[in-house]
């Protein structure tokens, strides 16, 4: 009996300390984000008068991996041609699609095979052909055997001829000025090697000419809840880590890298589903251990729009995949943890990720179960049960609400007055219900990581024409 009670007491202390630490770090990140975003927004507008940068913007290669995107690829590429940027090329990589992706793009952009010598500076699946457009001087298409998203990106990076490469998903929509904003850190701070922007949710928005014309909140509750979740992830998750130069994730849907930095670390890793995070962690690993000065940063307002799932099955698969990718990335770079040269990355960011992101679904679920069982057994009093449950849910609510505050302080994309009430409702849903639901999917992701099972899954399109997501 004594051992049982001792165990309960230890567990209680563990959960209590975990809770305090988790929320303490989140509040700290939040505070950092508030400071950063105030500074950023105060300078942002005047920064654009006059447009100093256009002549100095470094040429950039936009790499678009495509797998079975027959119905959307032409539209996606057309929208990329409307980007406001002085010098860029688009490299579409057809990753052995089984549908008519290649033919669609050949027809639309009048492609002809180009007898290019493909110097495979990064190892990839066999490149079958390289095409160039007779109508657009800055479009090239690589047709290669299927090897997954990372492999396609590596092929694109290999052939790119510019010092910066921008990796975007074929189904993502960039704001016309996203590129000029996202390259600013590369111009202003030459040691910048990678930069990401905010990903926003396109569900519900009105599109015109391949662009987001009017921003609306999605109709579906699951998508609105994800709006809050994304705000939380980008406006204080990423933004908080960025000033510490300890940002571990730049979304693969929209990221810019210095080509020589990617080449130095050998490109994207092809045997993980979290190739975007893995590359960023590897860059940290390489540059830290080589004692090289570098900066990996996040700019909150270059926006990339992406579609989120509106059905539980697809969402569950996505979250499981993200969790698996997180596990893989952290495992590959476990040597960086508490490495003498790893700085805040190895001493703070990675331990944080392991404790509060990777293991959190298990700890949180156990915590909930513990409270319920403890309450059932009479070990946890009704007062304690109610108080801790409310405190834990309330903390989540407060943090999501603070993300909403950051949005209001800075970008306020959702301009209708009623949107505020819908978003606050979504904050409530995200804290009570949605977050707990994702715990199960994340545990599934952990199991898949440990057992090395599971793939990319399929993306069911809610709004735009259907096509399969990138698969391996």
């Amino acid at each position, binding site marked *: 009996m004594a051992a049982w*009670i001792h165990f309960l007491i230890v567990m209680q202390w563990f959960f209590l300390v975990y809770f305090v630490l988790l929320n303490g770090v989140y509040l700290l990140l939040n505070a950092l984000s508030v400071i950063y975003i105030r500074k950023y927004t105060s300078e942002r507008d005047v920064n654009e008068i006059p447009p100093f940068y256009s002549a100095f913007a470094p040429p950039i290669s936009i790499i678009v991996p495509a797998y079975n995107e027959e119905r959307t690829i032409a539209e996606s590429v057309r929208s990329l041609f409307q980007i406001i940027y002085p010098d860029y090329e688009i490299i579409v990589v057809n990753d052995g699609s089984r549908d008519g992706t290649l033919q669609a793009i050949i027809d639309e952009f009048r492609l002809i095979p180009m*007898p290019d010598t493909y110097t495979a500076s990064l190892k990839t699946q066999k490149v079958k052909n390289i095409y160039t457009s007779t109508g657009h*001087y800055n479009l090239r298409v690589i047709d290669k055997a299927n090897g997954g998203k990372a492999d396609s990106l590596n092929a694109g990076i290999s052939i790119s001829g510019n010092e910066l490469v921008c990796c975007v998903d074929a189904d993502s929509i960039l704001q016309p000025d996203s590129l000029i904003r996202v390259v600013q850190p590369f111009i202003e701070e030459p040691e910048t090697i990678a930069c990401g922007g905010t990903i926003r949710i396109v569900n519900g928005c009105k599109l015109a000419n391949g662009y987001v014309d009017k921003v609306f909140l999605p109709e579906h509750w699951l998508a609105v809840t994800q709006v809050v979740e994304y705000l939380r992830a980008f406006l204080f998750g990423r933004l908080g880590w960025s000033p510490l130069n300890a940002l571990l994730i730049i979304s693969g849907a929209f990221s810019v890298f210095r080509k020589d930095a990617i080449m130095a670390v050998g490109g994207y890793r092809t045997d993980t589903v979290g190739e975007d995070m893995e590359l960023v962690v590897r860059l940290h690993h390489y540059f830290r251990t080589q004692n090289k000065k570098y900066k990996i940063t996040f700019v909150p307002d270059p926006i990339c729009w992406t579609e989120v799932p509106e059905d539980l099955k697809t969402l569950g698969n996505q979250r499981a995949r993200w969790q698996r990718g997180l596990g893989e990335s952290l495992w590959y770079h476990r040597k960086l943890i508490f490495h003498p040269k790893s700085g805040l990355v190895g001493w703070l960011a990675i331990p944080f990720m392991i404790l509060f992101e990777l293991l959190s679904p298990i700890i949180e679920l156990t915590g909930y179960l513990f409270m319920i069982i403890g309450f059932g057994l009479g070990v946890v009093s009704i007062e304690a049960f109610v108080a801790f449950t409310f405190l834990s849910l309330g903390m989540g609510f407060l943090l999501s609400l603070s993300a909403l505050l950051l949005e209001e302080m800075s970008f306020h994309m959702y301009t209708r007055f009623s949107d505020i009430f819908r978003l606050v409702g979504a904050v409530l849903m995200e804290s009570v219900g949605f977050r707990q639901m994702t715990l199960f999917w994340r545990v599934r992701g952990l199991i898949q990581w440990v057992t090395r099972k599971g793939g990319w899954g399929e993306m069911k399109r809610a709004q735009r024409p259907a096509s399969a997501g990138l698969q391996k």
Partner: protein
Amino acid sequence: MDYGPFSDSSVLDIVFWGGMVLLFLTIFLFSLIFFLRISLLFRNTGKRRLIDTWSPILEACAGQEFPEAVPGLREKDIESFLGLWLNYYETADENSREMLALVAMQAGLPKYLEKGLKRGAVRQKILFFYAIGALKDDSYWNDCLKGLQAENTFLSLSAARALLQLKPAQGINAVAEVLASRQDWPSARASMILMEAGMDLVSQPIARQIEKAPVEELPRLLPYLEITTSEVALPILEKYLATSSNEDVLKACLNAIPKFSSFHDTDLLLKLLKHPKATIRSAAVLALSNFLTFREGVHVADLLGDPVPMVQYCAAQALLNLPAMTEAKLLELRTLLTEPNAVDVLTRVIDEKRFRR
């Protein structure tokens, strides 16, 4: 019986009060969000009204037609007004600029500048420095000098620009002086500001700063020579190319030298083709290709056999740059190459040329 912290009354008290704080914070945040949204709506309405009022007036000035009536500015509209006004100002020609400045004066802008520079937020101050420069009101000279030392990068840059617009000859000395110490200044932006002031004005002050800068600052400062005259820049670049052993300094010189067509001491560059560092060889071969004759291209072709692929690639690109180099000649050269990687690199460059064409 002790069942741990969850049944400890003092912990529960903390949780209770923590909950109360949480509740208070939640209500506070929600009110703040609500307040921000309301104020945004008001701001947007005000901004729309201001644009409706001022756009036709500024439009008229841009068309060099002075408006019949100029409304007075309200303090709360200053920021929005400056945003709009500067947009017109930056794109207008010299005559229209004068008219725009006159309108701003008449609207009462100057009376807000002094107060804004003392008490305003960073964003406001930046706008004010832009306005001061545009209005050419040199009574703010000392404020601009103070602004030049500001910790905020963009604030100091906008003050620098204002100084150069107010009194170019004096301003350039002040700006050049801090150019060496402000490591936070993005070179592209600083160059633009200096270029606006004019090459003749900025050449000597920049050269003086470079001459007295410590070697570790040179890689950052040497690129500024690109915006100076060749009479000033070339002696400095040639000096460092001949004497420096610092890799970064050499690279900076090699990157800058192609901008000066009057450079003729190609021997300096030829020597660097044998430099032990591949990055220097690459930069040297690219720089050299701007000054060689077709016959001298043989020095470049030698580097196609370099053990480092990056140098091979730069050599191939340099060959492409040579005067009178044609695709046929490159293809002919390719047949003479024995090293497979060199053949591959040259083929790639030929294809890239076709692609660019």
